[in-house]
């Protein structure tokens, strides 16, 4: 069986490697029959269709066959055997085999599975109970990857925007595949960011509090990257308390589609088949987590995850040309009054990073809620995948003000290692286990002694300000496992690369993987080496560019203080004519809809006490907008609050931290999740070497 999509192609150098054989034990569903003495044994036969049959050695159908009534049709005699299958439910998440070239077969989460489902489902009458409404949601990074790929193929044309790609993919999914609805996941991300910010505020309020069971709450670490979650659960359980509980956009989308929109459509969660297109293989694992399985309806929030590469493959197999424009692809949908049963706000733009803008959302929150004006400084650390973002109080005497917030973007496995070490050291949690912990304990003491001595030698006894600032721990870290972040995810489309002789080589077509495909490693002249290295980075940069590409306006740097600019950046592509009005329409609408979603999902069902819900909604939502028809007033407030908010609309203000009860509990259930450490130590054979 072929492996799905472009999984064979991994020239990234930053994956978590598989470490041990899959040890899923064999489960025997029917007990072995006691064999009578002298009874004939059976043989396995394979027929023309490749099916396996168990046939008794003397050619007669085995007793098992007649009893089970199995072995129909072509199995003249003999019991048809089921093919053994390993699906993601069986996966022990032993070590991210999904992200590496060699891998286990995944049959439940592949584009083949999607096609199989769709063809089966198409045979079912839509009025029938077993019919499922097929829905597909696409990540913005996947759209960027497709857009970059299209633009690279036709360099002379105007670059294709993610919006055009979305429209074309929508056309493909509806007409060629038969999906009923095609969404992008940015509105779900909007919900996720709001919840994320809310959680940060909760943690910040609790952080440093004394009391029984008080645990360090900060730094909060981003939770959207499943590769990181998988790694932390397996190798660094001590990091789990710091990882945000907020669901990733993919899983929020799952909740949104199956619970909220499902209700609008009059469908139960089990009556919807939800596919997500993601830039990442580990998203498949994420969708398969127990937490995201709805026991009541026996269904997953996201039924199947395919990668960008798999989506491209499906289009290729269907002979669909994504380079062909579709009608109305450049038009901007008027969503001033969105009808959410079919439409969600489209391609919401969250400034910050192409990996979800989590850090930016938190920074904006801190600025917005600060009493004093804050200045942001961004510092690239050793490599481009590690940046520190520091908010300081503006000071009057020209010196650097006091640090209010220290956050970081940290992408790639090596940087992730350093985050783990840094967080472990600063928060005092024990890194590692067993005797390793003992070692560290000893180590700390010695290091501590040395530090003290150094201080004493300093003479004046005043701790150095610079040192103090450097040693201040992070409040928030946007952690992503891939170097370059999600635009460089393992499931993205790879560029066609020129090989050492200058020929175009389409790696994904020839299925070249790893070692020898790496141009640089074949013959090691320096120029080729550099070229090969840069090829990858260059491509990531192109995808990044495509990610931010809008039809009408250039990308603006967040933090610019001109309200008009902010306005246009917030929805540059939504409302080209009247930018500032357009903004208000898009993101305010998104916020309004977000509150409505939360309210409807978590509000008291009886509606006997609407006040509770309203109160919560107001406290959690954008303070700029208090009512449904408050558009005018909100816009006025927008203008005044822009200096502080810097155009941000991700809201999670927490004047209502104390809100308890049913609504709160429900909201947690809908938008948060939890993590479990995986016992990975396999006591196997002693290895001499």
């Amino acid at each position, binding site marked *: 069986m072929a492996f799905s999509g472009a999984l064979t192609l991994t020239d990234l150098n930053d994956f978590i490697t598989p470490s041990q054989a899959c040890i899923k034990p064999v489960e025997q569903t029917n007990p072995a029959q006691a064999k009578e003495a002298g009874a004939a044994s059976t043989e396995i036969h394979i027929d023309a269709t490749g099916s396996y049959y168990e046939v008794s050695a003397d050619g007669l159908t085995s007793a098992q066959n007649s009893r089970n009534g199995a072995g129909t049709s072509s199995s003249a005699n003999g019991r048809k055997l089921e093919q053994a299958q390993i699906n993601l439910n069986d996966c022990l998440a032993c070590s991210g085999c999904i992200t590496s070239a060699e891998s286990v077969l995944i049959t439940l989460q592949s584009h083949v599975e999607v096609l199989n489902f769709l063809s089966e489902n198409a045979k079912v009458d839509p009025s029938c109970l077993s019919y499922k409404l097929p829905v597909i949601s696409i990540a913005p990074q996947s759209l960027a990857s497709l857009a970059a790929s299209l633009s690279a193929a036709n360099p002379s044309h105007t670059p294709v925007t993610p919006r055009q790609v979305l429209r074309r993919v929508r056309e493909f999914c509806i007409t060629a595949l038969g999906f009923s609805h095609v969404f992008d996941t940015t509105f779900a991300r909007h919900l996720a960011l709001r919840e994320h910010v809310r959680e940060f505020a909760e943690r910040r309020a609790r952080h440093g509090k004394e009391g029984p069971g008080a645990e360090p709450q900060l730094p909060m670490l981003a939770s959207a990257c499943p590769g990181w979650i998988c790694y932390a659960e397996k190798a660094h359980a001590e990091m789990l308390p710091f990882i945000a509980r907020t669901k990733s956009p993919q899983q929020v989308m799952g909740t949104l589609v199956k619970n909220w929109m499902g209700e609008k459509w009059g469908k139960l969660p089990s009556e919807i088949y939800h596919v997500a297109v993601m830039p990442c293989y580990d998203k498949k694992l994420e969708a398969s987590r127990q937490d995201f399985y709805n026991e009541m309806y026996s269904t997953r929030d996201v039924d199947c995850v395919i990668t960008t590469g798999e989506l491209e493959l499906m289009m290729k197999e269907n002979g669909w040309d994504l380079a062909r424009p579709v009608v109305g692809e450049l038009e901007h949908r008027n969503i001033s009054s969105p009808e959410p049963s079919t439409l969600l706000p489209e391609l919401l733009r969250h400034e910050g990073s192409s990996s979800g803008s989590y850090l930016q959302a938190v920074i904006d929150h801190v600025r917005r809620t600060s009493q004093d004006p804050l200045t942001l400084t961004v510092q690239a650390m050793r490599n481009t995948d590690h940046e520190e973002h520091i908010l300081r109080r503006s000071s009057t005497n020209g010196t650097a003000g006091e640090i209010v917030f220290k956050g970081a973007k940290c992408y790639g496995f090596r940087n992730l290692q350093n985050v783990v070490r840094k967080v472990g050291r600063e928060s005092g949690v024990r890194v590692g286990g067993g005797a390793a912990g003992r070692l560290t304990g000893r180590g700390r003491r010695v290091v501590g002694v040395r530090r003290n001595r150094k201080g004493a030698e300093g003479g004046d006894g005043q701790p150095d300000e610079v040192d103090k600032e450097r040693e201040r721990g992070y409040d928030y870290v946007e952690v992503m496992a891939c170097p370059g972040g999600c635009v460089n995810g393992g499931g993205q489309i790879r560029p066609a690369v020129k090989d050492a002789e200058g020929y175009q080589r389409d790696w994904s077509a020839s299925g070249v993987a790893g070692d020898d495909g790496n141009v*640089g490693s074949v013959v090691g002249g320096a120029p080729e080496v550099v070229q090969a290295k840069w090829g990858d980075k260059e491509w990531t940069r192109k995808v990044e560019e495509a990610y931010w590409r809008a039809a009408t306006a250039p990308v603006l740097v967040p933090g610019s203080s001109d309200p008009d600019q902010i306005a246009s950046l917030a929805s540059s592509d939504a409302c080209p004519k009247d930018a500032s009005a357009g903004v208000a329409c898009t993101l305010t609408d998104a916020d309004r809809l977000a509150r409505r979603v939360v309210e409807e999902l978590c509000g008291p069902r009886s509606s006997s006490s609407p006040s509770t819900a309203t109160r919560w909604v107001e406290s959690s939502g954008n303070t700029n907008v208090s009512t449904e028809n408050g558009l005018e007033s909100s816009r006025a407030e927008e203008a005044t609050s822009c200096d502080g908010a810097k155009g941000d609309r991700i809201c999670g203000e927490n004047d209502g931290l104390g809100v308890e009860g049913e609504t709160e509990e429900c909201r947690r259930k809908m938008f948060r999740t939890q993590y479990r450490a995986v016992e990975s130590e396999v006591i196997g054979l002693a290895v001499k070497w």
Partner: protein
Amino acid sequence: MQDANSTGTIEAVAELAGHDDRVWHIAWNPTRPLIASCSADKHVRLYSYSKDDQNNLSFNHNSTVSTGHTKTVRALAWAPSGQTLATGSFDANIGIWEQEKGDEDEDVLENMAEWECVSLLEGHETECKSVAYSSTGTLLASCSRDKTVWIWEVQPDADFECLSVMMEHSQDVKCVAWHPTEEVNALSSRPSLSIHHFPPEQILASASYDDTVKLYVDDPSDDWFCFSTLKGHTSTVWSVAWAPGGQYIASASDDQTIRIWKRVEQHRWESVLVLTGHDRSVYSISWGPGKPQAPEGALGWIASVGGDGKIIIWELTDPSEDAQMAPPNYKILAQRSSAHGVYDINAAVWCPRPGYEDLLATAGDDCATRIWRVSP
């Protein structure tokens, strides 16, 4: 047992006993008369040595470090300063050890102060197989059965930052070794005919169960990356060693051979010589400058040991012709069978200290470390 056909001799100097299980590796302190050994008994033992009036060397047990590693301590490496010792263990961790600095006078410090674990580097998923400090002492490399090679930057206060995790090998990585950068500079004052000179560069070599040796350099604008894969061995490559001049690499393999790879371009290395002489796996090689101080054109001595219990000393000299691919000349200077009785020899290491270049240490499955003096 000395080999009659060779001109040189391998004379036993000392047997350092004390470990309760097989000894995996040894490391000579580069600045002090001290040698460390590590063992499956999870301990590190330190021995000091000194010369008496008759110029005889004597070795004395100095201290034993109970490492706290939960499994075998597989590898050892001294930082060039001689102040810091790194241990790599099958428990997947790397320990960094320093002597606690007190107000006592220097002698007491050097001999008596207890070794403390000042840092623990975690990250490998499975057994750590080898650790190595770069010639400047600013970088530490490690490798593991998890197929990865890691590079750590040494920072003040026993802190380390992970610079790179390279997943190039398809199997268990057995050994890492740094190019002796500084020696490249030192040797450039002594031009030799056939050796082309290349700008000094920190290069890391790794040897693996996938039968290859891989070489890595730092891309200053990016990450470390593998720029070359040396293929030729037909089985596991156990060990890799750089020539003191840095223009050659020697690799030892389960295919019972040693290969010499020559640098023919800045980033190109070619197999120019295959040394045969062992009857079993060659587990470890060490390439020292030789003694007395090598004459013009000498490339130093390679010591190789392995599953056949033999120590072989190879003397290499510059190629007689100037062709790019010309192999160096070689001869077996000395060899000794059953050096650790019937047991496998796991490691051989030349003493790096000036004046002691003829001292070789070997570690064996017989729980002992043995010190040898090689004379041409």
